[in-house]
């Protein structure tokens, strides 16, 4: 069973200090023009300590984890056979550039459907700042085994 290789897998925890220039790059790449996401002075005038993270930027930060494709690799799937099926974000507090965030990702589940042609890999990640949980991310990937070599 492929699932035995990954279900319950605790992925390496990691910390990242959010870089302002990378937040601005991300905001710009998604067409964001509002100043609180791209201009630190405007963000401070609006009462923020630094530029505010766009709501999906935590997903980009999570990509900084060591071996970002570890579970896919353990399953033996190629990267281009992987599609994003679902994504969830829950927020407890806003996050800003300059903050150090700790990510704790775990593989929750892996199931196969359509006579094994599709695999669904679920990851749950808690994000904390100075010990307080600030967000939860849930990620569901679809693996297309029929296009794997």
């Amino acid at each position, binding site marked *: 069973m492929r699932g035995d290789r990954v279900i319950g897998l605790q992925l390496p925890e990691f910390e990242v200090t959010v870089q302002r220039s*990378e937040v601005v*790059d*991300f905001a*710009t*790449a*998604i*067409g*964001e*023009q*509002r100043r*609180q996401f791209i201009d630190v002075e405007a963000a401070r005038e*609006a*009462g*923020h300590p630094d530029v*505010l993270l*766009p*709501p*999906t930027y935590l*997903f*980009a930060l999570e*990509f*900084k984890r060591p071996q*970002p494709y570890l579970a896919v690799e353990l399953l033996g799937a190629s*990267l*281009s*056979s*992987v*599609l*994003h*099926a*679902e*994504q*969830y*974000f*829950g*927020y407890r*507090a*806003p996050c800003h550039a300059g903050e150090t965030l700790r990510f704790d990702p775990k593989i929750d589940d892996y199931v196969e459907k359509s006579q094994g042609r599709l695999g669904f890999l679920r990851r749950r990640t808690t994000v904390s700042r100075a010990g307080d949980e600030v967000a939860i991310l*849930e990620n569901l990937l679809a693996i*297309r085994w029929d*296009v794997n070599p």
Partner: protein
Amino acid sequence: MTYENIELVDGDWTLQQLPIDRDVLARYASASGDRNPLHLDTDAARAAGEEDVIAHGMLSMAYIGRLLTEAFPHADLVDWKLRFVAKTPLGAQPVAYARVTADSDDGFGVEIRTELRDGTTTSRGDARFSFKRLGDEK
């Protein structure tokens, strides 16, 4: 660039994008860290059965994130979930939609989706906003 403004049309908040080109995908891949070749490399996309590269699902989600936090108070966004139900091919023009569904004194729910110009729904989901949260966000 895709610097469009949000509009309220028949109860739907909408945000229209310019066509997704390779430059948009390359900049999103670089800024997000998601360098899956399916979004960048035509040969890899064809080997996976696509005609050409396809957009990141998270790019559609990012557009909905812009719409949600511009139409409604960012600090009140409790959670949201999106299912990616169809692919966004190169050259497509996604439109993000958000419609308030359940409204109460405590907050409200929002149905969200992205569509292409040909009417294909590429993602759908929902978001919850609560007025009972701490914070001083705008």
